[in-house]
């Protein structure tokens, strides 16, 4: 199994979710993160002290899928998340050795 981690722009969450559902994924986990990258941050001012906020709000989606669909999933996510503007984010794929569904104790691809 593969874990796909996608760091995307927050307002693209809905589209990425739809894309994954279309693929047949039945589960995913999401968290709010802050990203630093080429997309430069913005300046904020508080009572005259100006400073740069480099870390921008991003959404991280983690989805574990069977090996077979992993690359398809990556492509779909990329398509859904792309705006073409800097800061669109990254997708990382890594190997998962075991997955377990807590409720049923099912293991492996059945569990994802």
């Amino acid at each position, binding site marked *: 199994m593969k874990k796909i981690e996608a760091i995307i722009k927050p*307002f693209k969450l*809905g589209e990425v979710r739809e894309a994954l559902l279309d693929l047949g994924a039945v589960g995913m986990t999401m968290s709010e993160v802050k990203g630093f990258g080429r997309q430069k941050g*913005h*300046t*904020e*001012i*508080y009572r005259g002290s100006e400073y740069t*906020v480099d870390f921008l709000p991003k959404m991280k989606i983690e989805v574990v899928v069977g090996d077979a669909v992993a690359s398809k999933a990556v492509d779909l996510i990329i398509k859904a998340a792309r705006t073409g503007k800097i800061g669109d984010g990254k997708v990382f794929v890594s190997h998962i050795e075991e997955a377990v569904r807590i409720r049923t104790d099912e293991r492996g691809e059945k569990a994802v």
Partner: protein
Amino acid sequence: MWKNQNLAWRRRVLRSLGRAAVLFAFALGVHGAEAAGAPRDASLEERVTDLEALMNHTAPAAVHRASRVSVNAGDHAWLLTSAALVLMMTGPGLALFYGGLVRSKNVLSTMMHSLFLMALMSVLWILYGYSVAFGEGNRFFGDPGQHFLLRGVGAAPNLDYAGTVPHQSFMLFQLMFAIITPALISGAFAERMKFSAMVLFILLWATVVYFPMAHMVWGKGGLFNWVLGGAIPALDFAGGTVVHVSSGVSALVCCLVLGKRLGHPSTPMPPHNVVYSLVGAGLLWIGWFGFNAGSALNAGALASAAFAATHFATAAAALAWAGLEWILKGKPSALGLASGMVAGLVAITPAAGFVTPAVGLLIGLLAGAACYFAVTKLKAAFGYDDSLDAFGVHGLGGTLGALLTGIFADPEVNPALASTWKAHGATVSLAGGFGQFLHQLKAVAFAWALAMAATYLILKAIDALIGLRVSEEDETLGLDLSQHGEGAYNT
């Protein structure tokens, strides 16, 4: 001698402050011109009669003779308290109510709409706003220069408007209404309007809609004034047409002209902090006692009646809205309850000093139900994006209240209804009924028309000039960062 030197010194200082100072010096020079003549003798009986009059919230007959006491401190205490309460409605009340309803990236920009107007409207008011609204003029507006920098607005009561409190306090109380009215509109364009366009819009809107409407309804000689010689005497105790119809209808035009927020309605945009909105609603309820009961302009029985009608209407409307949700959706929501409160407060505003508490309750029930359907059905049916329901609540609630006032106005609550009615002859009835209903209808229709036309034209002009909406990128980033360079929450 010394006084002249003193004035000269002041002028010297002021001159060095640049061109603006010329205006100030002028105002300083003319201030206090309304000093009264020396009191002539009054008999003891006259003096007692004067005191009695004042304690009954009427200007003493003595004012043109030898007034020894001209302010009823109790009336004044209530009016000052009310002025503070009404300002509290805008900031923090409305700022919190609206601020909680938007997404977290737009909370500061939304609160800024209210808070900035506290400052902006005050300056317009001292320059020409008060003059246009309450100065002497024609039936549509007062002379814009009459009270420039508030000259002629001093300690002595203005007998036309409020006979037992300083004219200056009446002016302050009315200012607080001029502040909240445009702030109400901001619910319609929240989360997408450029701040600069907002400032320009309100500046023009107040000038051509609010100040004139206030003059027509409440100003001496205004077209709809029911006690000071209006041709179409319309009852509007604390601002049904002036405040809520005008702002609510303009709000509708705003959201039609500006268009929907990006993502609306496919992306849900739930309130980022309902707690803020509930606190805001609570403060609005409290502050509205100043708004409505303060509009009696004294601390007599009318204030009591307005307070009572306001309270029971609000309670009933809250129950109506939450009750409908309970029945139709299975659960009463906190935001629904709060929305009902505001709907009730809005609808009772024109009626507050004219109806009994029981009628207040009834108006509240109707308003809660009507606004519930406006917000849930009407908006969905027509598909406009009234971000925070300024039209559904203020436009419709205000219209409903203004019309019902014509039906339920009761001379037993407000004796002035009976007396004025006679002065106008049998065809004009201020004390409720079909005749008065027609007057109300005319005033409401006028307010709708003026608000729609003016708002549309102003917006189109500003759009051509500097553009109304922020860029897509800025809207996505949020208005707090893009318009004000700050984020509300940091760790």
